[in-house]
């Protein structure tokens, strides 16, 4: 494109650029039909029924407490849920909802011992399955691992496969830890003052990990794409809408998470106690899949690697690929790269 062509095109591109940004909130998220199976407080267990269910072991998806689980089912043609359904799995999703001030007392013990436990119970009841696959992503992976690290009873025995995607295990040597790991930071005070940490603040902190990329380059690239006539509105908008949807983080859970993970390293040293019961990752003996991303800046790969020394599973698979914390699983290349690898792993372990 010549300079004159570019100059002529600039006003039209400016309108297009503004339109993409202004209509991002109107983008539709979600590709698959779903039904609510169970609700408790603001938490919902969703079921996505596969029309070609082949495997008796359902997959229960657990996302982080920051951002929304819509990333699992972003848009038609780019949905991990859609992929699993096509592969013949029945899929369930535990949606943590949008915590408000009345949820300030929700701690990690409530999330793991109650909500996740009950979500598993309801998944088994609704599907009629004997056992299930627990697939957690980011904090959702840590919560899933904590659940499997509790002493065995009842439904805890019924997790056959455990898949942990970009999971923080020992993040004491990370940028986050340098921000919030200092004992001088009054995490209890902040949690108490706020009640629930505003989602926007958590999102701002996440974006500050890569300030230029998040606050400038993303928009500059979009502008460049519009100017070159190569922008893909249908790809940009759902992802941008998802990024901007930030639920609040319950204060009690936030304070526990910061102290346990970024200050004391309690998870790796086996000092986490939930409702008086010790979380021991050595109790994890399920078929285990660990997925790490080489360019992950939220849960950098070295912070995930200690998991291999802690679990007692005999069947351990590690998938390590280039990509970022979100891009690895939800990026445009994921459909042809990581998703088939994950579903292949599940297929081999989901026969009756």
């Amino acid at each position, binding site marked *: 494109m010549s300079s004159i062509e*570019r100059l002529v095109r600039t006003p039209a591109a400016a309108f297009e650029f503004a339109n993409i940004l202004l209509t991002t909130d109107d983008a539709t998220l979600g590709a698959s039909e779903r039904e609510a199976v169970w609700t408790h407080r603001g938490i919902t267990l969703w079921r996505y029924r596969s029309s070609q269910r082949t495997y008796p072991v359902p997959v229960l998806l657990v996302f982080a407490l920051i951002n929304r689980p819509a990333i699992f089912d972003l848009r038609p043609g780019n949905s991990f849920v859609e992929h699993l359904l096509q592969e013949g799995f029945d899929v369930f999703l535990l949606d943590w909802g949008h915590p408000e001030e009345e949820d300030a007392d929700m701690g990690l013990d409530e999330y793991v011992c109650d909500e996740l436990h009950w979500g598993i119970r309801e998944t088994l009841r609704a599907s009629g399955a004997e056992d299930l696959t627990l697939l957690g992503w980011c904090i959702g992976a840590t919560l899933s691992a904590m659940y499997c690290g509790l002493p065995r009873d009842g439904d805890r025995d019924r997790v056959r496969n455990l898949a942990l995607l970009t999971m923080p295990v020992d993040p004491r040597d990370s940028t986050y830890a340098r921000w919030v790991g200092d004992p001088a*930071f009054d995490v209890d005070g902040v949690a108490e*003052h706020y009640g629930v940490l505003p989602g926007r603040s958590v999102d701002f902190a996440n974006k500050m990990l890569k300030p230029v990329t998040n606050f400038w380059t993303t928009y500059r690239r979009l502008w460049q794409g519009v100017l070159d006539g190569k922008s893909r509105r249908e790809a940009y908008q759902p992802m941008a809408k998802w990024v901007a949807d930030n639920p609040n983080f319950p204060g009690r859970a936030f304070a526990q998470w910061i102290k346990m993970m970024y200050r004391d390293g309690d998870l790796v040293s086996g000092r986490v106690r939930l409702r008086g019961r010790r979380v021991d990752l050595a109790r994890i003996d399920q078929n285990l899949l660990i997925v790490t991303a080489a360019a992950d800046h939220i849960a950098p790969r070295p912070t995930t690697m200690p998991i291999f020394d802690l679990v007692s599973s005999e069947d351990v698979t590690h998938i390590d690929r280039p990509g970022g914390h979100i891009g690895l699983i939800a990026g445009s290349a994921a459909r042809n790269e990581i998703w088939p690898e994950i579903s292949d792993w599940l297929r081999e372990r989901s026969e009756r």
Partner: protein
Amino acid sequence: MPDRSQQTDRSPSEQVRALYEEAESAAAKAFEEAVGKPSFGALLARSAENAAALARIGSDVADLVIRNMRIAGRSDITHLARQLHRTEDKLERILQEVELLRDEVAAGRSGGRSANGGEPSTGRRSSSETS
């Protein structure tokens, strides 16, 4: 870094763009290093503490004003919602006990089949809601 022959093959606008992207990339790296420093962490932590304290003071003042107008404030609504949550927690546990007993009765009747008989549960709070 592109070599000289590659640079001369490019048009001037492409060269400007490449130079800009190089500068942006260097700036991004510099900023990432800056935010990784403990001093930045301390600044961020203090800012979070101050923002939390200010939010609390603002909320308390606003609540006081609204309460004095005999209108339910945010803290009253939160208090009420907490009571509802506690009731819901208790109800959930009771429902689980009922389901357990129902399963035990069903298992007893069918002469020792598995707890839920291998049949999918109807889902007591199933909703027809779809999205």
